């Protein structure tokens, strides 16, 4: 169902459903709003502050984070005002100070008009992390492993495995590495072991049963197999390449264009 409301974004009126966030609606209308800690797969966390926009509430405007701002009837928002753009650049400078080496971040900064050669660098810190929390959320909400979490507080805040030791809960699925917007999480293979750095989670590695390529952690394979059924489970320990090959062979043998893997279960979409 969902109640529909009318709101104005950058002077244009639009309709949206209650429960949607300002970011979702504004992006749908084509507004350019940079984000770092937002990911459609996990609940919004509002950590990076880059998605700032201006909203008008009772005649006064103020800056809010659009990724976690619920829309309502009559809302008026400005996504490209001078104040907004200036504030975003300020936030970006602070983020750059935390992860000055990240090419991803530098590129985004450039697109926002930050080109000063003199970048601030306040943290020669432990590592390049902007504390956006995406890895923590994806591990917890999507994978259900909760193998990492925020630890300590203030300037000491950091994402770690519990007790700062390799976590047996880690599936070495690489979801954290995939979502990290500044490229700080990596999977390092060493023989039959894969280590998720910088968390130091050392887990047994999974190899493609056809070609032997390393494709993540054994834990991930088991978890995925649990959630799939029938012939789909046969695809778990195959790399993308071999999956395609086997699929193609099956099609050829059948002599017609049958689908080698059964249809995806309802609600699951192919990326």
């Amino acid at each position, binding site marked *: 169902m969902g109640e529909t409301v009318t709101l104005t974004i950058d002077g244009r009126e639009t309709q949206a459903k209650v429960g949607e966030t300002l970011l979702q609606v504004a992006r749908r209308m084509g507004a350019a709003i940079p984000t770092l800690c937002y990911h459609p797969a996990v609940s919004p966390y509002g950590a990076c502050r880059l998605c700032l926009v201006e909203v008008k509430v009772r005649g006064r405007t103020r800056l809010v984070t659009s990724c976690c701002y619920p829309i309502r009837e009559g809302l008026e928002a400005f996504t490209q005002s001078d104040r907004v753009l200036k504030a975003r650049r300020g936030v970006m400078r602070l983020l750059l100070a935390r992860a000055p080496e990240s090419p991803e971040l530098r590129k985004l900064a450039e697109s926002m008009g930050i080109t000063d050669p003199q970048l601030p660098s306040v943290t020669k810190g432990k590592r390049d992390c902007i504390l956006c929390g995406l890895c923590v959320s994806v591990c*917890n909400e999507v994978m259900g*492993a*909760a*193998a*990492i*979490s*925020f*630890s*300590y*507080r203030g300037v000491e805040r950091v994402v*770690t*495995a*519990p*007790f700062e030791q390799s*976590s047996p*809960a880690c599936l070495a699925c690489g979801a954290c590495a995939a979502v990290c917007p500044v490229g700080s999480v990596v999977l390092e293979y060493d023989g039959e072991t894969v280590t998720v750095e910088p968390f130091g989670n050392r887990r047994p590695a999974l190899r493609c049963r056809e070609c032997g390529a390393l494709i993540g952690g054994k834990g991930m394979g088991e978890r995925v197999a649990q959630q799939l059924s029938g012939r789909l489970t046969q695809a778990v320990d195959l790399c993308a390449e071999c999956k395609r090959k086997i699929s193609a062979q099956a099609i050829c043998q059948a002599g017609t264009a049958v689908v080698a893997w059964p249809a995806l279960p309802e609600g699951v979409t192919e990326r």
Partner: protein
Amino acid sequence: MSETMHADYLASIETIADRYGRNPDFLIPMMQDVQTAFGYLPRDALEGLADLLGIPPSQCFSVATFYKSFSLVPRGRHTITVCLGTVCYLKGGREIAETIERELEVKAGGTSRDGLFTYEPVNCLGACALAPVVVVDSEYYDHVKLRDLPRILKKYREADRKGQ
């Protein structure tokens, strides 16, 4: 850790968890009780607690490291707090802190080798009129002079010797 030790741990953690109906919403008070029972938060105890509550150990670790009042390492039997806020600092707090560090051979947050004192400097206890202030456990010492320190330390050392 030995098996029997582990059984002990589990029994006391179960008692604590049951006190709160094993409801993870009460994680913080449960962890406070664990800390009171063991003097700190032993890793095994936290992992046991997480298991009982059906929450990931990472959540316990996150909470344990967030709050200053939790400690993941054994603490001394007494906590000695020296105020280094502006007023106390100017009125001799710094010298007091230095003396304690030397006397107990500890750094900020550290515990003396005999396991008696954990030393924690703080920034203003909100009692500036009494500066310089030293607090042991929950006992306040006001207008402390360097020459008062041996007497204060002795008090706890002796009480402890008698207690054993």
